[in-house]
């Protein structure tokens, strides 16, 4: 067994953009397979670990969620710059999915209810200045940066994720079986 920090493990990251974190929950459903993963990979960045900055020299990054605001956009670019392989994890990253339901309306219309003033306090319901600016449209990851593999599903179940991760650990491209690549 390898010890943490040894160099023959791959540098592995997961990123959470505009999504519900369901894909990450599903990732946790890998259960005992997580142990196997930990033997082969070092988790260098993830909502599960306390790292502030996306590190340099990452081998594989799984990205959950659509690119829906400026912060997502900057993160996606940084992920691409610093990762050898980027994989879209789940329908939001792959298709935009629920996050992009708002694309049917202009951003202003989407935000209007939040900007409206609360009758009692006279303040807006939401302080829009404190959250990152929404992009005009929420986009699938591959429409923003080049993506190397896709794991569709909402969320993709653990078996799918494992299938993809195993291929990546072997240094092979993600190639899911037909039953594992449905949207939804």
């Amino acid at each position, binding site marked *: 067994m390898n010890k943490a920090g040894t160099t023959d493990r791959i540098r592995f990251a997961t990123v959470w953009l505009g999504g519900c974190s369901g894909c990450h929950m599903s990732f946790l459903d890998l259960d005992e397979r997580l142990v196997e993963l930990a033997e082969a990979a070092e988790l260098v960045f993830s909502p599960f670990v306390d790292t502030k900055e996306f590190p340099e020299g990452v081998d594989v990054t799984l990205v959950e969620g659509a*690119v829906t605001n*400026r912060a997502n*956009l*900057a993160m996606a*670019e940084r992920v691409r710059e610093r990762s050898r392989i980027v994989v879209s994890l789940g329908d939001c990253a792959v298709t935009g999915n629920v996050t992009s339901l708002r694309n049917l309306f202009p951003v202003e219309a989407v935000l209007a209810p939040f900007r409206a003033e609360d009758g009692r306090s006279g303040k807006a319901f939401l302080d829009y200045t404190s959250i990152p600016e929404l992009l*005009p449209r929420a986009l699938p990851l591959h429409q*923003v*940066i080049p993506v190397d593999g896709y794991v569709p599903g909402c969320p993709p179940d653990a078996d799918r994720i494992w299938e993809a991760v195993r291929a990546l650990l072997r240094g092979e491209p993600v190639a899911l079986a037909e039953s594992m690549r449905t949207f939804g």
Partner: protein
Amino acid sequence: MIPADLRVMAEQERERQEGFRCRILVCAGTPCLSAGADAVLETLRQGVAEGGLDAEIEPVASGCMGPCSRGPLVKVRSRGKEVIYERVTPESARQILFSVVKGRKPPTVSPLPPDFPFLARQERVVLANSGAINPERIEEYVAAGGYGALSHALHEMTPDDVCREVSLSGLRGRGGAGYPTGVKWSLARKAPGERKYVVANGDEGDPGAYMDRSIMESDPHRVLEGMALAGYAIGAEQGFVYVRGEYHLAGRRLEGAIRDAERKGLLGSRVLGSNFNFRIDIRTGAGAFVCGEETSLMASIMGKRGQPWNRPPYPAQKGLWGNPTLINNVETFAAVPAVVGRGAEWFAAIGTPKSRGTKVYALCGQVEIAGLIEVPMGTTLREVVFEIGGGIPSGKRFKAAQSGGPSGGCIPAAFLDTPLDYESMERLGTIMGSGGLIIMDETSCMPDVASFFLDFCRDESCGKCAPCRVGTVEMHRLLRRITSGTATMDDLAKLEELCELVGTTSLCGLGMTAPNPVLSTLRYFRDEYADHIRQRRCAAGVCAMAESPAPGAGGEALLHAMGVPGEVE
């Protein structure tokens, strides 16, 4: 009416015309009318009436004379001599009339020189009567030899003879694809079926083309005669002219022509005393480019959404109401009376070995003299643009000629000496099409032109098949990314792949040819595309480029991600 009556009618009309000292023809085609031709005609009529010159001078509203950008045009014809005046106003018309009466030259108006290349370099077969007769008087068409070919065919030729003559002439479809007309006729002739139909396709939807409109406006009987010959040849008793909805004048003139021809026994029952019956009805298009496609056109004639159906079966086997149907373009039918009347050999001697006869072009865009011309097949583009069209205005350079409308492509300056015929144009990646020739100078941007055509196709796609319905929209979006400076080279690759898909898998001709303007501009002007993408620069100054993003801060990706604002809905 029997053939002898036809001869009498022609004789009487010729005598009537020769009785005038002079006939003044005013072009009453749409372009000249919108330039004020009716005021000119009115002035002439008034002048003649006031001067009591009714017996000597006849002002006539004629069809199109050709150089439309120089209208209103007036042609003075006396004792076999002709002079043409351009840009005539009511004032100058008065001068012209005065000069005719006095037998002098008008003081300040000069006619076009007799060797004016725009007119002198043409060879008019289909347009022989355009601008020479009053399209609203059947007598004038007959006096010019009209219905002679029909009369000859009905009494001296079998239907097979007519088919053979058309085959031997080498006439090919003037609507776009250039399918041999004789073969089409023979197929329709041989197809089993009690009822058969003849359809003239006058749904000239190509932007920048108006040959068919002009023919229908200027010489409607020629189209009717061609259709009647086709009806006789294939054994049909009913014809339809499908006229584009926008062409009010053409529709009106055809309607009048059909009425007159029926009254004189040149259409209807027992045509010219023979056993042949032939009726023609008009169907009016309602604004759908796809109806230029044969199967869509037939759906439209039957009162349905103009959506195509999969071929085979071809219209010649199973067309209108399931019956064999012969569909030809208006210009094709208009060539038939000349083919049958003057013989296949005569016709075949014009043009090139594989593309015979003449072709009418609508020459427009950035060219000195825009208008309608007819030249032998194989005339070079250079002759057309620089000799006939007078070159490019304002000292600019010729960049490309766009032919075939949204289904066609462009011919760049390097190929100016290409002979305009079906094969040569296909080799260059474009098509003859219906004959629109749009001349572009360096102020035209090629990706922008491609985007223009894709916008058109996207709008005109009927929606029946998925590749065309969605593919044209995605192609247009990619092109707009390019012309707005937000595309990547990857987008260009995607665009080319979509071109292949839409061109190969679409159901009908609209989709199959929709990528042509892109492929053709890419073939000759790839640098311009790359320039738009890499340098974010439009050399022609047409495209408004998105502002260069601030360095870092996700600018490039953002620009790309946003693309151009959507516009569906």
